[in-house]
């Protein structure tokens, strides 16, 4: 992010304008940050203190008892949900991004008949909302006896057509054609070249696709809701949904849901902060065609 690029000096607004601009931006930042801050503060409150809404008081600091409550509720099933989410999201995104980037790379580096038509099909996959597919997927899975299994969620989330699109762009940008030629002259096999040379160059792009897919899978709610009825297979999102419905009648669940929500956003926030430059490149590659 080039924070240093200033507009031409004559474009700089006057002091009043500058204050207004900063106030507006500041307000929007507050708007986006405060709810997360609330979640953070609320996670330190027990049920009674939550109701009193004096969020800044430290008199009853219950972060740790909330944490232990979270992992004690319903025999600690939250831990299981968390592991499930990690499996669905991390393994799914890893595998999914490898599959998509490989396909995007092939679209970039090889020529074959009907290539652009086939690519159009991939783009159609970007446009078609996954929720429309959920019902037929459910019926298929139920024919195959796979409803309410790990695979019923894991396999569909691997599909990432946007990753193919990004993969093609990154392949154009990161893998010079000369490298391939050189490799071929050396007599290396096509796949060997891909795995030994190209994939390494595609690294940053791969991370971007991985990051996007990780977010999408971690966010996924509709598909698990349709496919899963066994709570032990739930990802965090679905588990918190169920607990929140409990909280409506049993307010004891509020601190647990709040604590569970906080823990559930940590991995993504960490991933974004650590891998900042990758999401930026994905966003701009996706938007500026």
């Amino acid at each position, binding site marked *: 992010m080039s924070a240093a690029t200033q507009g031409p000096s004559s474009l700089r607004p006057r002091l009043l304008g500058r204050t207004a601009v900063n106030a507006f931006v500041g307000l929007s930042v507050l708007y986006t940050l405060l709810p997360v801050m609330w979640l953070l503060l609320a996670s330190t409150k027990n049920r009674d203190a939550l109701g009193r809404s004096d969020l800044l008081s430290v008199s009853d600091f219950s972060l740790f008892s909330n944490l232990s409550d979270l992992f004690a509720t319903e025999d600690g099933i939250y831990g299981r949900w968390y592991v499930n989410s990690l499996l669905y999201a991390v393994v799914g995104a890893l595998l999914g991004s490898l599959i998509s980037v490989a396909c995007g790379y092939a679209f970039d580096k090889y020529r074959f008949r009907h290539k652009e038509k086939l690519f159009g099909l991939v783009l159609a996959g970007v446009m078609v909302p996954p929720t429309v597919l959920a019902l037929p997927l459910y019926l298929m899975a139920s024919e195959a*006896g796979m*409803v*309410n*299994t790990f695979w019923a969620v894991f396999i569909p989330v691997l599909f990432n057509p946007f990753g193919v699109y990004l993969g093609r762009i990154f392949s154009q940008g990161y893998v010079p054609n000369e490298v391939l030629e050189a490799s071929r002259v050396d007599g290396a096999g096509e796949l060997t070249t891909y795995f030994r040379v190209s994939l390494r160059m595609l690294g940053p792009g791969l991370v971007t696709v991985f990051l996007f897919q990780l977010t999408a899978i971690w966010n996924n709610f509709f598909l698990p809701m349709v496919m899963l*009825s066994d709570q032990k297979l739930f990802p965090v999102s679905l588990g918190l949904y169920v607990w929140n419905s409990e909280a409506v*009648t049993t307010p004891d669940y509020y601190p647990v849901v709040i604590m569970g929500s906080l823990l559930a956003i940590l991995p993504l926030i960490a991933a974004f902060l650590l891998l900042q430059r990758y999401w930026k490149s994905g966003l701009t590659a996706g938007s500026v065609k």
Partner: protein
Amino acid sequence: MHGRHRRRSLLAALAALPLGGAAATACSSGGGPDRAQARGGPARITFWSALRGSQEVVDAFNKSQDRVRVDFEQIPGGQQGGYAKLRNAARAGNAPDVATVEYPQVPGFAIDGVLRDLTPLISDRLRKAVLPAAFALTTFEKRTYSVPLDIEPMMLFYRRDLFRKHGIDLPRTWAEFEDAARTVRRKAPGKRLTTFPSDGGSRLAGFAWQANGQWFDTRNGAWEVSLADGPTRKVIAYWQRLVDEDLAFQNPIDTPVGVAQIAKSQVFTKMSGAWDAGGIMGSQPGQKGKWGVAPSPRWDAGNRQVGTHGGSTFAITKDSRNTEAAMEFIEWQVSHPDSLRARLSSGISSMYPAVAGLVPVARKAFDSGYYSGQDIYTLFEKEAEHVSDQWVWGPRMTSTVRTIEDGLARVEGGHGTILGAVEEAQRSTLSDLKSLGLATREG
């Protein structure tokens, strides 16, 4: 959990396989399945229910004989939980042998092929023991799809103490009920005689039932849907007036809000099926001795007819491999005194059994101290005789009721009318049934 169940039922199915074949032939020849079972040990069947006390009933049954072993799984109650689970299992081909299905859901599961036609399995003894009005609700085109456990006439639960305090007589007709509502409104600020339940789609059905409404009719070989028929309009106009003139609260009642209203003595009455005598005892322990039970108000004093609210049945699913053993368990469950005793031992219940012979058992088991010693079972018995038998539940009752309640929630928020909510449910239900390929007619 699910995986384990699947394995278990698969094992059960395998174990029962030769047996199931024997049973199928035994069906026609009338031979006993006992012979076949003697060779392979006890028959194992699976049973799902959301009813409380089911585990106790299953334990008692398993102890009472050694021909059939029942494996029980408690499933969540309510539309989202249990029924979705049952439907999923049926799709996957591993539904339990026996499942609890409430009356309104019976035709839907029957049409979807989840429930078996039990007609050839039901013994004459059982056929005679169960109230005909109850069997009528689970029988379509002369085929019976489930066996009723209880039948729950709609009762008026009222606060004796508050009635006395404000000099209100027990209303016998709806006109008197309305007068009483005016009295309460006048004499007791901030309080009301009753609440019009915006979560009360099934109560509204019970009211319509009493007034001779006929939401669904199958007599002409098609589903005739008329949720907003004349009698129902009469009922709706009545409640709309009570709400408009602020004579009744309007909010959900089977929620913390509704329970709190009663706890704070803001409402004087509650209309529910007979089972709710136990429900009120459980949710309002502090109001012991303050409640009484009375017959539901009538439309005219000469006509004793009532509707029902609640009630469960037991069905055998298409995936059952051992229907004879399943039926043996069901028959024991609904008609054996030990079954009722076991169910009541798990906690307070005031269900009114569909097998009349069990009423003395229930009366004896129920501690009527909460109702100041009132003989509520004799009252239930009288009311159950007046449950009118013209009523038919529709094939997508869950969603019909849900649509009505969605509309009622908007009415509560100040948008639309009760009639509008019911009319929307009428159109939506018709769309539903038509797209299922059923013969339909708009009533």
